[in-house]
């Protein structure tokens, strides 16, 4: 009886080790992030990108609705008047000062929904870590830049 049990036990061990061996030959699951780009869905919300019209004018008109709806109060908008010499947007006013505090922002996307001109889009940039809080308050010149591509955008 004990010999039968020993054979059965040995068979069980072989069976279990076969499972281990199977995974030895599969492709590793790990995404080698800093060397490789990661795969993101298009609905991922990262750093904001302020949009421009095709003729180069800014879409933002400085209405401040994004700042009003922001649950974390991370956005600060100060509108300024366009003149014929210095024209930034197509309408009367433009965002003279547009700042997003990324230490506060929770990337909920309410600002994108509130924007009446479609000037604000949440992009796919996620690598935003900085060494000081001051660097994380990003102004218009940073937000107008498109995101540095760290990711491959998948089909939705």
């Amino acid at each position, binding site marked *: 009886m004990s010999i039968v049990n020993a054979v059965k036990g040995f068979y069980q061990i072989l069976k279990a080790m076969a499972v281990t061996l199977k995974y030895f030959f599969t492709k590793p*699951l*790990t995404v080698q*992030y*800093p060397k490789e780009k990661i795969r993101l869905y298009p609905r991922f919300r990262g750093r904001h990108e302020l949009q421009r019209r095709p003729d180069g004018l800014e879409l933002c008109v400085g209405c401040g609705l994004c700042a009003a709806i922001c649950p974390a109060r991370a956005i600060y908008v100060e509108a300024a008047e366009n003149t014929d010499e210095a024209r930034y947007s197509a309408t009367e006013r433009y965002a003279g000062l547009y700042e997003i505090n990324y*230490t*506060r922002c929770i990337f909920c996307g309410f600002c994108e929904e509130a924007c009446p001109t479609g000037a604000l889009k949440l992009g796919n940039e996620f690598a935003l*870590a900085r*060494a000081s809080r001051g660097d994380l308050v990003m102004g218009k010149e940073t937000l107008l830049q498109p995101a540095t591509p760290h990711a491959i955008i998948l089909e939705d």
Partner: protein
Amino acid sequence: MGLETKLPDGVVLTTLESAVNWCRKYSVWPLLFGLACCAIEMMTAGMSRFDIARFGAEVFRATPRQPDLMIVAGRVSNKMAPVVKRLYDHMPEPKWVIAMGACASSGGMFHNYAILQGVDKIIPVDVYIPGCPPRPEALFYALTQLQQKITTQKFKDFA
């Protein structure tokens, strides 16, 4: 601390300094310590898909006597603040802090009496990660930034 405070700069200890920094850079052990939802992403960073072991930081230590890095993952309530401070004080030098997520960086969306408005009010922070919660890759980006910071450190900073 000792010898490095008495010797002039750039004589004996520069090579040793860079060697020690190289070792420290690839063995940043974090403290096993999470406060809220960001801790879930911190745990995910240890899983096989993301694998924090590639940065030498997979050894999450459950005692403050062994780790080098404190990842403050989550909101710090006023009740938790003394505990965070005590854990930080128990950690041996050299030690670094990553404020992970909006709440740890500045209080995030919680503008109220119960949440500490940024963990840097009680402990010095080296890297801030925005996001609510940040992706594990965002944590890795912060970790690479911290590794860059460690390479530039001098013995004199700890003396």
